């Protein structure tokens, strides 16, 4: 047998033995570990705590206009979050594959819904994203590709939403890139938010999950609109310069406003050097102090 024939046979064998891409199975119930960013994943962040968010001026201005009461408007109680809520919310994940009925190939991966987030359907069949003027909704449109054993999902066509549960905004021009990395029974999800309207740099969060034999519930009961204290027609907000909680982080933790108001430089360690003379350690930690002696 000639060298060429041997090479051809080996190449053919390799094609038969291994999938063209190193896909891995992501299906199952993934229980949130929630050891990262405990305020984000738990009861929620303090108002005007935007340190580490790469805001531009528009992002900061919109965030400062946010009153938490706005999501209790009857018109918004049943309003879904965008897919970024995987990063900003606390829930576990359930994932499954949707096969093509003819070929059996995975046509899409689905990350099941929560009560406040629509399912994320990640199309794997190479279809293009809709045109830029196509309708947007909270679900968005998501396609995926494999990079080795990492699934990379790209979500566009979302509506405006929040990147932190205290009103830090994202725009309808944002793109969410979600990386799913499985290491045995551990799943790491790394989310990148690129938003040309409100951010100057990508904002990145990671979340970790353990494979669980307890099925993670998906969906939930239908949302019921009720009185949450905001009557129909009132739109809670703060006018420029009127947000009453702008100094909350200074009062609680001695953190200067230039840090709590965010901006790309607040993401990086060097920023600590810049504000070190302005930081005043409170005599006693009053809230969310964990092992520091507070509650």
């Amino acid at each position, binding site marked *: 047998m000639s060298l060429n024939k041997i090479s051809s046979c080996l190449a053919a064998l390799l094609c038969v033995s291994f999938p063209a891409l190193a896909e891995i199975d992501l299906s199952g119930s993934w229980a949130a570990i929630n050891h990262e960013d405990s305020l984000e994943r*738990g009861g929620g962040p303090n108002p005007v705590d935007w340190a580490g968010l790469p805001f531009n001026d528009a992002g900061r201005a919109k965030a400062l206009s946010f009153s938490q*009461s706005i*999501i209790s408007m009857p018109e918004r109680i049943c309003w879904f*979050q965008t897919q970024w809520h995987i990063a900003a919310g606390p829930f576990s994940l359930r994932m499954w594959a949707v096969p093509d009925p003819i070929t059996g190939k995975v046509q899409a991966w689905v990350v099941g819904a929560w009560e406040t987030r629509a399912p994320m359907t990640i199309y794997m069949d190479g279809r293009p994203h809709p045109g830029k003027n196509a309708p947007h909704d909270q679900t968005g449109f998501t396609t995926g590709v494999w990079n080795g054993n990492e699934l990379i999902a790209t979500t566009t066509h979302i509506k405006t939403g929040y990147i932190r549960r205290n009103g830090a905004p994202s725009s309808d021009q944002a793109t969410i890139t979600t990386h799913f990395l499985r290491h045995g029974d551990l799943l790491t999800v790394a989310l990148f938010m690129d938003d040309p309207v409100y951010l100057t740099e990508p904002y990145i969060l990671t979340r970790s999950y353990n494979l669980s034999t307890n099925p993670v519930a998906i969906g939930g009961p239908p949302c019921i609109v*009720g009185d949450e*204290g905001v009557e129909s027609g009132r739109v809670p907000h703060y006018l420029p310069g009127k947000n009453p909680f702008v100094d909350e982080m200074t009062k609680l933790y001695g953190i200067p406003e230039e840090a709590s108001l965010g901006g790309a430089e607040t993401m990086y360690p060097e920023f600590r050097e810049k504000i070190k003379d302005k930081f005043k350690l409170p005599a006693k930690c009053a809230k969310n102090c964990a092992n520091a002696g507070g509650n």
Partner: protein
Amino acid sequence: MKSKLFVLVFAGLSMLGGRAYAHHSFASTYLEDQKMTIEADVLQFLYRNPHSFLQLQTKDAKGNAITWAVEWGAGAQLGSKGVQRDTLRPGDHVIVIGSPGRNPEDHRLRMIDIKRPSDGWSWKGTFD
């Protein structure tokens, strides 16, 4: 050791109670370090996920009716503590202690404690 224990306990609680968390931030919605007591009549009990709401009615000094929205645990979470959808009925007179909302005009509380003097029924606790 302490920090490891904290992480383990927090992770465990998160897995157990994951679906009970709200879509909003409690810290941004309520003055969590303050308490307020109101005595009122039940208008409606909205027993639901991710959080239940109890609507109460009081009167101000001039006799005008004020409706309060008291946020409570998820239906499943309350059910496991013995609070069912018919535990409270319209007209029940109750005394509620809660953390007030940051926007006073919302007339909103986060439930800490509730008592019904007519039969001594009560509930006290926290929820996520």
